[in-house]
Each structure stands twice: as C-alpha cells, then as structure tokens.
C-alpha cells in the first residue's frame, strides 16, 4: 500500500549508516530525471542547511520500533547499562504516547497547507460547518514539520506556495513514508534540528491521504498532482460540497 505511486526518491537511499532497518524498506526507484533537484534546494533556501552530522539525540529512533535497538546502539555514548535504562524509560514514554494518541484519534486531525490568508479563512469556516477543525501550515516546510510532530488523518495541500510548494512537499512526505526517515527533506534544506527534536514517537504505517488544492493551471494539472504522490485533488475555489466529498472519501 505504501508504494502505489512512482515515487522518485531524491537520493535513492538512506544516508544514515545506523539506519540499516530503514534501507530494507526502501523501494529503489529510478532517480534519473529529477531535473529540479537544485531548484528544490534553492527554493527551500529559507531553511538553514544542516551543517553537521546527525548526533543521535537518543530517544529519537523510537519512531520505528524495528529500528530502536540498532540506532541507539550505534549512537550511544555511554556503556551498556546506560543504554538499557534509556531503552526502558523511552519505551514507557512510547506506551504513554500511544495511549494518548488512541484517545485523541477519535477526532480526525486535518492539516491545511495554504499560504493565502483569505483562502485559509474560507476553508476553515467551511470545515467548521462540516464539523471539523484544522491545523494550518503556510508552506511545504511548515507542513513537513507539522506532519513530523503529529499524526494527521488528512492533508489538504495547496500546490503553489512559497519556500516549498505542495508538489515537492508531497514528494518528500512520500519519501518519509517509504523510507521511515526525513533524509530527503533534510537534503532539500528542511531544518534538521526541528525534524529530529520534534519527531512523533508512534508513526502511523498508513499512507497519509494528501489532497491537492489546485487552480487547474498547466503547472498544477491533475497529472502533475498524481505524479507527485497526491491521492486526489480539489479544484479551486474550494466549496462545501467539494470538501464534504473529500471527507467522506478519505476520513473513516
């Protein structure tokens, strides 16, 4: 289910050597034709480039259960005893977090990624009438940080945005789903510190539904949306009916 669309991974594989479990999960896809890689980096130049190697901030790895042991082993600074106590404490926290997630999961978490204030106001009001609240991100980078922090049930992604647009952001999110890490995003200039310090501990294994909100110009065609990993699209302007149908289809 995770590999339904032809995802082009930016660097094709996981860079972090401690992440050996991650590697086996990655689908090797052709990396050629990723023409705008440089554009990707410059466009997200607003984000500070990662200047140093990942210094494992301990508990981080618990985002994927399978990876937990290997990562902490590779990076632990203390002796074996220290590592074991870290493991115990972290797994307790993980359990608590999972419980909280379960309690909160009754209300669907929706993320709206949009830079236009007026569009945000209208969409929020429509969602409110449909009985939902939404978190807001103003560009692709903020969207990635939000998704890293919480488990969302649905993402409404505007295509044209500054800093990092919706198509690119979606590619990076799919890469994260495929590989279990944000290396591609970090490579693209998304702030490593933020991603690694605020990572959600229990990551959903389900594919995150990402719906494009497109003005239907050439650059935002439905083909482009699907090619970049979007599940569906809503053509702008957004209406109650379009949102209602979207919710019916993607929220259960």
């Amino acid at each position: 289910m995770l590999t339904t669309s032809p995802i082009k991974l930016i660097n094709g594989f996981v860079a972090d050597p401690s992440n050996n479990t991650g590697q086996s999960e990655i689908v090797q896809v052709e990396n050629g034709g990723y023409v705008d890689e440089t554009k990707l980096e410059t466009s997200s130049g607003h984000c500070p480039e990662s200047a140093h190697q990942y210094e494992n901030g301990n508990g981080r790895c618990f985002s994927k259960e399978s990876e937990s042991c290997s990562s902490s082993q590779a990076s632990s600074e203390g002796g074996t005893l220290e590592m074991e106590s870290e493991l115990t404490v972290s797994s307790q926290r993980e359990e608590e977090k999972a419980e909280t997630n379960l309690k909160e999961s009754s209300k669907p978490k929706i993320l709206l990624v949009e830079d236009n204030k007026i569009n945000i106001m209208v969409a929020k009001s429509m969602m409110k009438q449909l009985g939902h609240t939404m978190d807001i991100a103003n560009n692709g980078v903020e969207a990635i940080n939000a998704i890293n922090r919480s488990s969302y049930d649905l993402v409404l992604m505007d295509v044209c945005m500054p800093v990092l647009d919706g198509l690119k952001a979606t590619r990076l999110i799919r890469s994260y789903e495929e590989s279990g890490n944000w290396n591609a995003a970090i490579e693209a200039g998304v702030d490593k510190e933020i991603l690694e310090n605020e990572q959600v501990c229990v990551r959903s294994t389900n594919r995150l539904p990402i719906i494009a909100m497109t003005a239907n110009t050439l650059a935002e065609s439905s083909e482009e949306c699907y090619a970049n990993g979007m599940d569906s699209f809503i053509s702008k302007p957004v209406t109650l009916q379009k949102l209602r149908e979207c919710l019916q289809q993607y929220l259960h």
Partner: protein
Amino acid sequence: MNTIVVAQLQRQFQDYMVSLYQQGYLDNQFTELRKLQDEGSPDFVAEVVSLFFDDCAKLINDMSISLERPDHVDFKQVDSGVHQLKGSSSSVGARRVKNVCIAFKECCDVQNREGCLRCLQQVDYEYKMLKTKLQDLFNLEQQILQAGGTIPQVDIN
C-alpha cells in the same frame, strides 16, 4: 415592526443581489460564502470581503511599485501579486476582479509592462467598484434587521 417596510427592503435586497450576479460582479463562490454565515458568525461575509479588499489594496500598491520604473520591472513580484489576487478573488466570488487577474497574468508572463499597467488600473477599478456595491448590499441587510425583519435567502438560479 412595519411589515410593509420590511417587505420592501427585503425585495430591494433580493433584486440588488440578483443584479450583482447578473452583471458579473459576483459568482457562485459568493453564494458559498453566504452559506457560512449563521448565528455563530453573523458577519462572516462582511469580514471576509473586508479582508479581501484590504488585501487588494496592499497587493495593488506593491505591484504598482514593482511596475513603476520602465527599466527595472520586477515581474516576479508582480506575478506573485497577481497569483495571490487571483486566488483570493476566486475564493470570495469576486468574478470581475478574478477575470482581470487572468488577463493580468498573461501580460506578466510575456513581460508586457504596458499591459500590466493597464490590468493594474483595471483591477484597482474593479475591486473598488465591488467594494462599493457590497457596501450597499450590507447596508440593505442592516436596514432589514433594524426594521425587525430577517435577511431573505436569495436564489440566484
């Protein structure tokens, strides 16, 4: 409550609203906005359009600065402004404003400064015109409410 006065005002309101659609100032998206107005947010439409008009003024001002010097036009900035304006006008149902933006974008794409300036002038005119018209509409609404009546549902189709 003077029922005759209320009925007259309601009729006026309906006719005015329909004319705005017929003359192309507004489209279905405005109808969508009206659906979002309820007891919880009784001034929603007025608030959104107010924000929209403020946004228009700012964007138009920024674009005029970018277009000012013939030898030094920042078409990227203008394009960005037009994009924002097209998006917001589309979201609120400001049909004429949106249509000017479509033409504006084309001028920008081919870096036609003269064309851009004309479109800028036109978009300025259109948003101000719409602002006046909607103000009249909201005034009618207020009059109805003050006379003790309710705002009628207007069926555009």
